[in-house]
């Protein structure tokens, strides 16, 4: 299992800090006239996307190309759980082509884990989001963004997020971003509070290393970062909340609420934002909102992960906890 990145929960504190530090150096490449490193020359990476996600795929693709890897994009559009065999068949096809790594996005929770632990394929597996399970590179780029803003770009090197208070707001139930962030932020020493209507919090959440609140207003003044999750309008139809308006009123972030946050505190969003639902335009466009930075940081983080997993003869990341599974 050491060769893959499946879950943010698999990373030790030192692994995570190493990835963040490496990403900080990768970020400097973006400032150069030639934004390219020869590091992964001759390595073939497949972006295997069973779900549409142009943002994540482009981010990985940019990272792969900056490291000079050969990139193959495979978008199995319209694929669903009913096409179960196709994951195995696709994996074996890619294996036969001699790919070194598979970056996989899949609608089924656990599909990347299955790919990594089955005998279908020998390549390194990097989870680019699976169902409602995990999205570890998103959590890493979020942590990277927080460390830069809350600790400092240079001061942050070698540091974690000890004592930082992070509030994650929205559809926790259906969010792999929330799960990954809770795991990683806890590992990095941050204190996480999840805020959502009770219908959008999973049964069993009591085992997560975080606090749960149903009241956004009472947590804002105690937050160093507030991360808004996307809330899909369709959830309304399944009775998770009554109306868009009521959701926005109780759990949306507007200018008045942002004003209750400490001055240094930032607003984050994994994108794409639903303006007017979980976040108002005023907040989304403010200096405190890091959405655009998060996108840029995503490329640096993915370069770091790719380098640390593929740059040598063995990975530099330990992943102890997945092994125990």
């Amino acid at each position, binding site marked *: 299992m050491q060769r893959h990145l499946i879950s943010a929960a698999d990373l030790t504190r030192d692994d995570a800090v190493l990835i963040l530090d490496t990403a900080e150096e990768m970020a400097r490449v973006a400032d150069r006239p030639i934004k390219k490193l020869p590091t992964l020359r001759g390595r073939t990476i497949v972006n295997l996307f069973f779900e549409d996600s142009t943002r994540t795929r482009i981010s990985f693709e940019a990272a792969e190309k900056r490291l000079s890897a050969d990139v193959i994009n495979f978008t199995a559009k319209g694929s669903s*759980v009913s096409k179960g065999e196709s994951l195995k068949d696709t994996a074996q096809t890619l294996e036969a082509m001699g790919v070194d790594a598979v970056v996989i996005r899949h609608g089924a929770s656990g599909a990347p884990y*299955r790919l990594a632990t089955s005998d279908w394929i020998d390549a390194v597996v990097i989870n680019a989001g699976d169902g409602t399970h995990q999205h570890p590179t998103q959590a890493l780029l979020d942590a990277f963004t927080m460390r830069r803003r809350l600790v400092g770009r240079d001061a942050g090197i070698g540091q974690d997020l000890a004592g930082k208070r992070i509030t994650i707001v929205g559809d926790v139930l259906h969010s792999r971003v929330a799960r990954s962030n809770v795991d990683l932020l806890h590992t990095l020493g941050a204190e996480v509070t999840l805020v959502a209507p009770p219908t959008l919090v999973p*049964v069993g959440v009591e085992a997560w290393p975080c606090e749960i609140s149903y009241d956004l207003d009472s947590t804002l003044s105690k937050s160093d970062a507030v991360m808004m999750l996307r809330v899909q309008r369709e959830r309304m139809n399944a009775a998770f909340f009554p109306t868009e308006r009521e959701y926005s009123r109780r759990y949306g972030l507007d200018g008045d609420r942002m004003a209750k946050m400490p001055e240094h505190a930032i607003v984050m969003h994994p994108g794409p934002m639903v303006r007017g639902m979980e976040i108002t335009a005023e907040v989304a466009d403010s200096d405190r909102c890091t959405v655009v930075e998060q996108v840029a940081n995503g490329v640096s983080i993915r370069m770091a992960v790719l380098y640390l997993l593929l740059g040598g003869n063995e990975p530099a990341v330990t992943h102890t906890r997945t092994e125990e599974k």
Partner: protein
Amino acid sequence: MSKILIRGAKVLGGEPQDVLIDGDTIASVGTGLSGEAVEGAEIVEADGKVLLPGLVDLHTHLREPGREDSETVLTGTRAAASGGFTAVFAMANTFPVADTAGVVEQVYRLGQEHGYCDVQPIGAVTVGLEGKKLAELGAMHESAAGVTVFSDDGKCVDDAVIMRRALEYVKAFGGVVAQHAQEPRLTEGAQMNEGVVSAELGLGGWPAVAEESIIARDVLLAEHVGSRVHICHLSTAGSVEIVRWAKSRGIDVTAEVTPHHLLLTDELVRSYNPVYKVNPPLRTERDVMALREALADGTIDIVATDHAPHPHEDKDCEWAAAAMGMVGLETALSVVQQTMVETGLLDWAGVADRMSVKPAAIGRAAGHGRPVSAGEPANLTLVDTAYRGTVDPAGFASRSRNTPYEGRELPGRVTHTWLRGKATLVDGKLA
């Protein structure tokens, strides 16, 4: 007529005795049987093995007709004989569905032809298992198959009115409805038990209440219309409480538990290995302990395997795409030995009761689940309880290999099975 003398068998786990089979009947049971009566008998040295009445499984999926790639009546009954069963009840969710006299008679005849094990078809409660219109329950009962158990297993009869009518209707011929208790709306997209593990794994949660609410409704309906109801594969501690309450009220309810729910928990799902995907889902340690206790105290009446064969490709995929179910006929007794006998919760007489006597009584399987005594049909199972072995699916008689126990050490092994005096399993090998 051929004679078989089983020497030194612990009948129901008691003191070693000799059992003489003459033809299809047990001729005598006693110590040191000898003389003219045993002359010419084939000798089987039981040597301290435990002799039980042939096991009866009230919940088997034989897949024929329609899914012969996963199991057939022949392979399924061979698996049953290997596991010590002399009668199995074949669930109705075949293709076509067993909702007419024609289909149930076909399955029944196949069982008779192959001769490894009596096959008693279960009829569908509703046409096509769709929960909307009652199937011809009476016609199935009057057919050669003589159906007495009706179930839409795999699907819940969730419409309260249809359930009520079915419960009432089968009273006319002493039938029973076996309910697959699963509230469909509460389990849309459900992939595993809802709890700590599902929250972490991001798999759709299958709440205990989806099972318990249907059981609660159905015991009340059974009480109201004065019928009996059977609850399939009960899986939660809460379900146990409801059945216990219903029995204390005198409601005519019976319940089954599967071997896997007596042993396995949802922690195994962390592997995302679909071999652990099953309906109802594996629950928590607390549920497992409550189920064992309920089986011991009789709240749960029987063990039923829910033997659900699936071809390799239906399990060799990601979790969400995988089929639900596990094979169970060939490991059932071993799991019960480990979870109930070796824990001191049941003795072998208790096992005979939960795996033979009671299931035969619920299903009205004539000639099965009878005492091991003279004059009774010679449906018998001999178990080497001292055996310890590792489960190797390659050795299964079933066509499918989807066992959650591969590589696991389980105690006990069935060495002989007799169906009406005819050996179907000898020294662990199918006859």
